């Protein structure tokens, strides 16, 4: 009881202090560019709960989900294939290095050319940007499969798909999920950017729009929404990861404790 109260105090302490400072500092401010906590929160509900939820927020989320889902599935498949073969690894490495290094936003104009300026383009951009961490981490994870585990598998006649299923995938899972964790924020970023160019709807579009029309508190509420979204995605990921990698975290905790 006392412990959880202390925990709560730690979790809320600094944020409350910061908000208080912000509130006090903005009390006397008259410039409309300085955000104030109270209007910000009231604007938040006004702006985002309503039509915008359906026309902007949900479609954005849909594109984000579609793009990252494609990235994760394709990324793991490609990573597995490439990771298991030394030759394929050498064959693809420079090309992958290059593609990974391309800042994905610069592909928006290019994708707009080849695919057009619809949702497919946005999803493609998100998928393209988010796939590299998944691929590269899967490759590393597969490659780092423990020798002793591999020999154990072999000595018990576990090979081929059985080995992928029982040994390679689970042992690479922590690394794969580390890749997924990196790819999620990239997905969000690209969701926003892809809506800032050639857009007619979406979160990124709305926020730029609000900024252009000098609806400053509303714009801040949009930034807040993006922050919340990023936070929610990372929280959700953590939950999923905790479940999937229960063994891994248990193991790490134990190692760290010693």
């Amino acid at each position: 009881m006392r412990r959880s109260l202390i925990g709560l105090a730690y979790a809320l302490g600094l944020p409350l202090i910061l908000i208080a400072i912000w509130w006090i500092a903005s009390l006397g401010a008259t410039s409309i560019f300085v955000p104030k906590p109270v209007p910000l929160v009231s604007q938040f509900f006004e702006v985002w709960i309503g039509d915008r939820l359906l026309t902007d927020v949900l479609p954005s989320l849909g594109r984000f989900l579609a793009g990252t889902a494609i990235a994760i599935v394709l990324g793991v498949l490609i990573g597995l294939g490439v990771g298991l073969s030394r030759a394929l690894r050498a064959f693809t490495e420079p090309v992958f290095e290059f593609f990974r290094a391309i800042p994905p936003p610069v592909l928006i104009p290019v994708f707009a050319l080849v695919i057009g300026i619809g949702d497919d383009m946005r999803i493609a951009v998100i998928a393209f940007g988010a796939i590299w961490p998944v691929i590269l981490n899967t490759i590393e994870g597969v490659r780092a499969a423990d020798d002793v585990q591999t020999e154990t598998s072999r000595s018990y006649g576990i090979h081929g798909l059985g080995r992928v299923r029982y040994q390679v995938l689970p042992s690479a899972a922590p690394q794969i999920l580390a890749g997924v964790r990196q790819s999620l924020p990239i997905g969000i970023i690209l969701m926003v950017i892809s809506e800032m160019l050639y857009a007619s709807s979406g979160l990124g579009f709305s926020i730029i729009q609000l900024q252009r029309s000098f609806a400053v508190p509303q714009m801040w509420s949009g930034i807040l929404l993006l922050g919340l979204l990023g936070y929610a995605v990372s929280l959700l990921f953590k939950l999923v990861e905790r479940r999937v990698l229960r063994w891994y975290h248990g193991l790490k905790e134990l190692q760290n404790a010693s």
Partner: protein
Amino acid sequence: MPPENDIPAAVVAGRGRTLAPEQTLLSVRGLKKVYETDGGDIEAVRDLTFDLGRNELTCLVGPSGSGKTTLLKCIAGLLDPTEGEVVLDGRRVTGPPKKMAVVFQEYGRSLFPWLRVADNVELPLKNAGVPKARRAELVAEALESVGLAHVPRSYPWQLSGGMQQRVAIARAIAYQPEMLLMDEPFAAVDAQTRADLEDLVRQVRERLGVTVLFVTHDIDESVYLASRVIILSSSPTVIQEDLVIDLPDQRDQLETRALPRFTELRHHVYEQIQLAKRGFRPDDARVG
């Protein structure tokens, strides 16, 4: 330097004992293994010949780097020998054979940390297509026999080192091998657990009629465990001595180790290994 006092020598210097085909489970013939590396070839094992009889418990000792692990891997079909052959039950070993199980020293890395204890034991059976009901039975039996029936739902890393190694042994038992290879399985567990595990291995051999080849660094352990100790020379490796352990079959951690004969055998093996370390080789002896 020939072996001294009343310890019987190997049948032929530089050779292990060979048996008649019907008694033999495993034959190693003229085994040679050369590793090809960047820095040139490393001849880890030069020429090994010996047979293991059914239900024997043989210990393999030798200086560090003498190729014990290499030999074991060749037998397990995990490495291809450069020359010579390994024959298990009449069939030449080219890949991991069905009825063989290996227990590695690195229990922490040989168990799959994402599987619970029971699932770890079950996995090879599942993969081999053993029916579910039979699997459950085998797993329960195996865990029972290593004294871990109470923790099937734990993860391996939640167990102590000794318990983990027992899980690895249970996995090997459940797989019902005819031959069990163990590579320094107890090197990293504490002395007390080690004693318990040693007795467990002897039990398992007795009850399941399995043939065991046991690699160890520990001279006491080899003498205590085995009915026979094969001493390897230093690398490139040949057999330094193939020693019969003529201790009573019923062994006990305190009593057996207190026997004068135990001390003698221990002493003998120790000296042989010291010899091996100093580079003495049986073929040198023959020439010299």
